[in-house]
């Protein structure tokens, strides 16, 4: 490897729980994501903010291959996937999904299964856990998200906030190394959203590595270590939360924050 002047390290030498480099996605000629880079340490929390259509969700969904990126590399918790060319083999995709857990805007619990079954089925099918082991894990997690008495309910019987907490428990049951949150409170009214944010805050305090696409500016500032601002399919800026919120460097960021905070 040839080193140029200065202290700039080549991307391959970066280490971290999450190393995303040069990630991009195009549909034919239209480019929806370009050259997104993100390196995170274990236990770090990064919030992604920005206007609609900025590519925030697309970026997040590329990280576990719900969307297929067309260029770049993704390394998460020991899984490594190179985009572009032929589709990555099944083993590395499985690995990538094993180390990531995802929480969706619309919860996406399985409506035909009880809360307990929602949390135990993936453990049994993916980890090969026994019924007893899976239930033990589920009970612990239900306690942790504050819903120990809902195990036998069907999701439709629960409020949105409760469903989202169950969805978090379901993802945690597979012991992911990194949790991906895709606007987890956007479908909830502000008050109910708080109970979900509280669970996420606890999770962050316990040292979970988290990437959170959100419109909750307080959460972004108070809970995350860094904020990444996206616009137009790329990264506008990324930095310590306090700094991005109070002294944004990018003009487009200033504009966006003004619109959000002056509301």
């Amino acid at each position, binding site marked *: 490897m040839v080193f140029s002047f200065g202290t700039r390290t080549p991307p391959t030498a970066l280490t971290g729980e999450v190393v995303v480099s040069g990630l991009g996605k195009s549909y034919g000629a239209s480019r929806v994501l370009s050259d997104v880079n993100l390196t995170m340490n274990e236990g770090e929390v990064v919030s992604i903010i920005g206007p609609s259509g900025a590519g925030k969700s697309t970026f997040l969904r590329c990280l576990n291959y719900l969307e297929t990126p067309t260029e770049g590399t993704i390394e998460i918790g020991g899984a490594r996937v190179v985009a572009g060319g032929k589709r990555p083999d099944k083993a590395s995709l499985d690995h990538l999904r094993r180390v990531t857990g995802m929480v969706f805007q*619309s919860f*996406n619990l399985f409506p035909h299964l009880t809360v307990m079954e929602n949390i135990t089925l993936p453990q049994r099918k993916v980890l090969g856990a026994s019924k007893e082991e899976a239930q033990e894990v589920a009970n612990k997690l239900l306690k942790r998200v504050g819903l120990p008495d809902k195990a036998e309910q069907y999701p439709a019987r629960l409020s949105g906030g409760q469903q989202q907490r169950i969805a978090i428990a379901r993802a945690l049951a597979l012991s992911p190394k990194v949790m991906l949150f895709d606007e987890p409170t956007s479908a909830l009214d502000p008050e109910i959203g708080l109970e979900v944010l509280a669970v996420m805050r606890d999770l962050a305090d316990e040292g979970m590595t988290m990437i959170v696409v959100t419109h909750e500016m307080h959460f972004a500032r108070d809970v995350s270590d860094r904020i990444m601002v996206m616009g137009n399919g790329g990264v506008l800026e990324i930095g310590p939360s306090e700094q991005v919120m109070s002294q944004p460097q990018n003009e487009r960021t200033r504009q966006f924050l003004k619109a959000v905070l002056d509301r």
Partner: protein
Amino acid sequence: MIAQLLLTIAQGVGLTLYVTGASLLFGGAIGLVLVAAVRSRIPVISGIATLYINVVRVVPPITWLFLIYFGLPQYALRLSAIQAAIVGFSLIASAFMAEIYRSGLLSIPDAQREAAHALGLSPVATVGHIITPQAFRVALPAVASYAIGLLKDSALASTIGVREITYYAQQSARQTHEGLLSFIIAGVLYIVISLVVAVISRRVDLRLRRKIGVA
């Protein structure tokens, strides 16, 4: 008189149920294969399956029955009337059931598949544990109403000599000259069977609905 007619015509209930039930069973199973074929990524397979479904559905049931019962023996495949009826109705049912399954599958939001993928569930586990149970729940009322439709169509089997309800009704009408009464009794028998099917399906449907609580 009525009692005697009823006793005679009710003899056909067994074969009506047998032909309908067997055709629904075979048709339902073949329909599963068909819907998988229609959704296949290989164009030849999905093309053939789609063609099959469309051709089978637009040819009238009685034409199929005649084709199978009177036409096939020309090429050395001689089936009994009952076999021919079951083959014919299974063929027809498979095409309709495939369409019912397909609409059931389409009604499951992509988000359910995404959630399963994000959790790392294999495609087999996703289809088996997440998609199919929900699609079944959606398809159930359509399956029940198709079953009732098939029950009525099974009367056509009388034209090739299957001794089911309508066959006996025709015979009674000829022998006793009680045409009106004979066919009213046949009609009532169909109504009773349909009601039983409808009630069972409603029960199951309500139970699932209460449990899951979706519209």
